[in-house]
């Protein structure tokens, strides 16, 4: 009997030993403020997570320059595919093992701030020559949460219409101009669409940032109210910004939604299946790397009833609150916000955010009408609409718009449903 008890204890002990080992909270070593030390003594590894492989060239050049100043800080890049980036970031954040520096975007910023994952940088900014007034105000504000600043924008993007000059020439259609209208665009798309559907005039993507947010703004609608308390989808102007896309669905001037979901619109554009594409300024590097490098140009979004609108959005480098080497992480983030990194950014095809450097981006790629992106940012850009937990209402938004795009329900019905679900979600925030 005794032995049985002993055996049982042994078993339980083994199991508990296993459990205990993992149940113990790991002490993340409360950050002891590092002794005041000269910059050159800062050392260690800084891991950086980001989602776009196209940025490798820019980041590698930045690392090279950075290491000239801080030779002892090693930057380790951790790229991820977009779909997996947020999954991984969230999983890693759950127990505080997120990369020291990671990219953060508008829709997710509040969630991560409230989750305590991001480190405010106000303290660091005090002792730095970074002047936030020299960055686009909308971008700075986007990352100013609950009275604290969480990052320096290093890039921003707006939307334009990229077009394939070869396909325009072949169809004998004149190139679009910056002052064109929505009706002119639709008409152009009709002329470009080939009878046998081997070429479509445009792509009616079900994409918020690239497409319908822009038309919502141009029509004078809003996605979310200014105080972020209520949905704008029940407004007639907002619904008009959706209706214009739905109207195109029956026209057959675009690959079907299913086609665009299966083969990404940018791939279809670069494989010359789509002649015009609503897409972001970040597309420059992909275009330059493609076969179409000399056959593509870009214009501003068309005006709707005389008004224009484009979403402006930008990404920051956030510092992890669990980082064990925040000093070094900050030095890297600071460097990426400074002039030198912004110039590299411009040369590598990405719009830099620092005042005076976007022009360098334009002049570094003279073959394209990149000024259109800067003009639109200055004159009619609207901040990417977000709330505390945008993901909660973005999912039903996309699901319902999908139904409207597929003509299963009419736009008003879909938008009213979105407004209802969105208001419920916002009330919970």
């Amino acid at each position, binding site marked *: 009997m005794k*032995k*049985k008890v002993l*055996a*049982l204890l042994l*078993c339980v002990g083994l199991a508990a030993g296993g459990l205990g*080992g*993992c*149940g*113990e909270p*790991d002490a993340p070593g409360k950050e002891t403020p590092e002794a005041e030390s000269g910059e050159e003594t800062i050392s260690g590894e800084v*891991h950086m*997570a980001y989602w*776009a*492989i*196209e940025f490798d060239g820019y980041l590698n050049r930045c690392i090279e320059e950075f290491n000239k100043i801080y030779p002892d800080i090693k930057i*380790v890049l*951790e*790229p*991820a*595919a*977009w*779909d*997996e980036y947020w*999954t*991984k970031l969230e*999983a*890693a954040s*759950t*127990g505080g*093992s997120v*990369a020291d520096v990671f990219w953060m975007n508008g829709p997710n910023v509040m969630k991560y701030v409230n989750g305590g994952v991001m480190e405010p940088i106000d303290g660091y900014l005090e002792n730095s020559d970074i002047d936030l007034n020299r960055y686009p105000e909308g971008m700075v504000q986007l990352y100013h949460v609950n009275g604290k600043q969480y990052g320096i924008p290093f890039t921003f993007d707006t939307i334009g219409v990229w077009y394939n000059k070869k396909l325009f020439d072949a169809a004998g259609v004149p190139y679009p101009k910056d002052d064109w209208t929505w009706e002119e665009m639709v008409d152009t798309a009709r002329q470009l669409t080939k009878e046998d559907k*081997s070429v479509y005039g445009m792509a009616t993507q079900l994409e918020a940032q690239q497409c319908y947010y822009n038309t919502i703004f141009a029509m004078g609608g809003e996605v979310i109210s200014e105080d972020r308390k209520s949905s704008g989808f029940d407004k007639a102007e907002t619904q008009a910004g959706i209706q214009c896309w739905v109207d195109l669905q029956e026209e057959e001037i675009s690959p079907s939604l299913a086609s665009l979901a299966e*083969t*990404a619109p*940018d*791939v279809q554009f*670069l*494989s010359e299946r789509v002649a015009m594409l609503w897409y972001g300024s970040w597309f420059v590097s*992909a275009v330059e*790397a*493609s*076969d179409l490098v000399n056959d593509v140009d870009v214009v501003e979004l068309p005006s709707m009833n005389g008004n224009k609108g484009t979403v402006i959005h930008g990404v920051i480098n956030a510092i992890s609150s669990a980082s064990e080497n925040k000093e070094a992480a900050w030095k890297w983030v600071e460097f990426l916000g400074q002039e030198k990194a912004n110039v590299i950014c411009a040369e590598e095809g990405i719009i830099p955010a620092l005042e005076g450097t976007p022009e360098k981006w334009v002049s570094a790629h003279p073959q394209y009408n990149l000024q259109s992106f800067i003009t639109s940012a200055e004159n009619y850009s609207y901040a990417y609409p977000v709330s505390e937990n945008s993901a909660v209402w973005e999912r039903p938004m996309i699901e319902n718009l999908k139904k409207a795009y597929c003509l299963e329900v009419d736009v008003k019905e879909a938008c009213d449903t979105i407004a209802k679900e969105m208001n419920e979600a916002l009330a919970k925030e």
Partner: protein
Amino acid sequence: MKKKKLRMGHVLAYLFLISGILITVFPFLWMILTSLKSQTEAIRVPPTIFPAKLIFENYVTVFEKIPFARMYLNTIISAVVTILGHLVICSMAAYAFARLKFPGRNVIFMLLLAVLMIPSSLFILPQYLIVQKLGLLNTIVALFLPNLFSAFGTFLLRQFFMSLPDELEDAARLDGCSRFMIYARIMLPLIRSGLAALGIITLRFAWNDLMWPLIVNTSTHKMTLSAGLSYLQGQRWADYPAMMAGAVMAVLPLLVLFIVFQKQFIEGIAMSGIKG
């Protein structure tokens, strides 16, 4: 009359088998052909069957885009350790369950069988948190740690141990060998075929596993080939020929190994069915 009928049967059998072979092989052929085309040619409509010009650069591109060599190494390390872990840990436990008497043995073994039925994908989150608490995220160890312990392997090897006659052990025990020595020196060599079967099944699993390595390691330098392919596919500008080149290279080692050791592979898998 009868003979003719038989021959007809054979013809039908061949027809069936050969069309099956074509369906089986076609995706691989198409993968190889695509991997040698240029991106423009790969997405041309209508498609060309054979590449107009053989582009071997796609294979180089894969190495430039992602640390593919490193992923190879990670996959090999992870697979080898997982196999060794299975062989040692499972065979030890299997021996104990099959041939030693101790209180609680049957209860513990039943619990083990329950694990067999549970889809491990459901526990990926707690497993992730444990690995995180151990401070092992983004390490090679994280790739194989939870996979070292296999209920299936134990179950399989237990069947092998149970089929060995008792007399073998009795003689050694009279000579004063400890049970562990008997296991290590006498019994283990006798179930070589079982170990080979388990090794092969584990290799197949460890080489191809996707979900766990995808979540647990974020740095591309710590990824396995499977996760690397998924990463390659998730890029904005999908480079189909490079993706296919990556797939060819990821599949190749196991394929070569299989062709060399096909007899062992097939016997191993067959054995798991009979013993299981």
